């Protein structure tokens, strides 16, 4: 019978998308770091004994699940055959915002899309289409992102100046202002949704981009 702490470790590591340091686990689970490490070792052994297709490993100062190296051939085939998917609509929109608004912070992109974009931004960074290009000089010192030479290469462009002009479809500053006003005073549900975008000051995108 698995203990609750053990099960909690499994649950947390299953949804984490980066290695979780044992002391963080210890803090959340209110047990000692030593105990966490002990339990993680036990779990890793258990998965090995049970001959699972995944492993619990310690990397980069933390624990994470990963596919078993024995299964690499299948995973590779899955990646090659399966992921025929192009950029998702969400990823494309996010990429477009970074392209037209760069340099831009993650919070600003979130504010425009109205949803959290952390996962998508990470993917775009991983693919090398987007990279950190600096920091906001303002108080928050937010990381600013821009597109990469690889991105331009994929589009067959020499520079971002060659991106197609946006024309008159971009809402003017008054619309953006009204929009932000709307976000601020809207009904409960809406406010919730945009709350995490609200803490970034100066998120009003300038009309000229």
């Amino acid at each position, binding site marked *: 019978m698995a203990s609750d702490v053990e099960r909690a470790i499994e*649950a947390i590591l*299953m*949804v*984490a*998308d*980066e290695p979780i340091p044992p002391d963080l686990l210890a803090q959340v689970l209110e047990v000692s770091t030593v105990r966490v490490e002990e339990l993680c070792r036990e779990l890793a052994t258990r998965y090995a004994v049970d001959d699972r297709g995944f492993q619990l490993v310690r990397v980069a100062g933390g624990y*994470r*699940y*990963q*596919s078993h190296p024995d299964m*690499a051939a299948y*995973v*590779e085939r899955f*990646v*090659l055959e399966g*992921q*025929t*998917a*192009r*950029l998702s*609509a969400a*990823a*494309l*929109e*996010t*990429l*477009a*915002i970074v*392209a*037209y608004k760069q340099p831009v912070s993650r919070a600003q992109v979130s504010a*425009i*899309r*109205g949803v959290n974009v952390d996962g998508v931004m990470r*993917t775009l960074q*991983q*693919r090398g*289409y987007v990279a950190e290009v600096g920091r906001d000089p303002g108080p928050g010192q937010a990381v600013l992102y821009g597109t990469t030479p690889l*991105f331009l290469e*994929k*589009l*067959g*462009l020499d520079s971002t100046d*060659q*991106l*197609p002009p*946006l024309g008159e479809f*971009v*809402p003017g500053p008054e*619309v953006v202002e*009204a*929009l932000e*006003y*709307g976000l601020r*005073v*809207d*009904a*409960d*549900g*809406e406010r919730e949704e945009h709350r995490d975008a609200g803490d970034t000051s100066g998120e009003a*995108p300038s009309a000229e981009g």
Partner: protein
Amino acid sequence: MAYEVATPVFEGPFDLLLHLILREQVEIWDITLSTIVDAYLGELTRMGALDLDVATEFLLIAATLVELKTRRMLPGSDDVDLDEELALWEERDLLLARLLECKTFKDASAALQRLSEAAERSFPRRAGLEDRFLDLTPDLMAGVTAEKLRAAFLKAVAPKPVPRVDLDHVAPIRASVRDAIDELADELPRAGRITFRRLTADLVERLAVIVRFLAVLELFKQGLVDLDQGERFGDIEIVWLGGEHARLDADLVDAYEG
């Protein structure tokens, strides 16, 4: 932005009507016309920033209700137009059907909410590919053109909520049947006999006229006024029957709370 604040404010005219008929522990046959109309007016007033579409819907439903209600309150007459009668029944059936449909989806949405709450207790693994496999992934930007990128951007920045129309300069409607009754009870004993047209001559808002009409009907129901209409659509003469000092507040309050 559409008017969509949740409870205790109502989300729409159906919502309110369902509430009035089903949820209030009020014997429905005792809901007075003024209760219903006041509830609708109250909602309209509460919509601080007035959404015209919603307000219109509220008024439309309120109008149908008022029609049903007045039909019930006024004495039946022999020369009732059969077509009109049928039309009213049709309207009622339509309203009933819409209410039932609305109620169905309301309950369905509660079931979806429960499903979603259960599902929310589990979090999906979204870690994605380990670094060692990243190089394998095919070119995700294949097929993405500059034009598509532009289209995606325009879609992303398209105004989401509709900019709010500033209606602060529009005076909120502050009419309630109850207030109108109080006014009339003050005014009518002095006038004794007056036509409806004269009684409402100084009212600019159509809604205020309607409210006053409803108040007159309510007084008629109470037996405090007599009504006389020479011809269809002709002016209505109102005769005060309550005596000079008929302070009817108590009676009326009772009627409202019923």
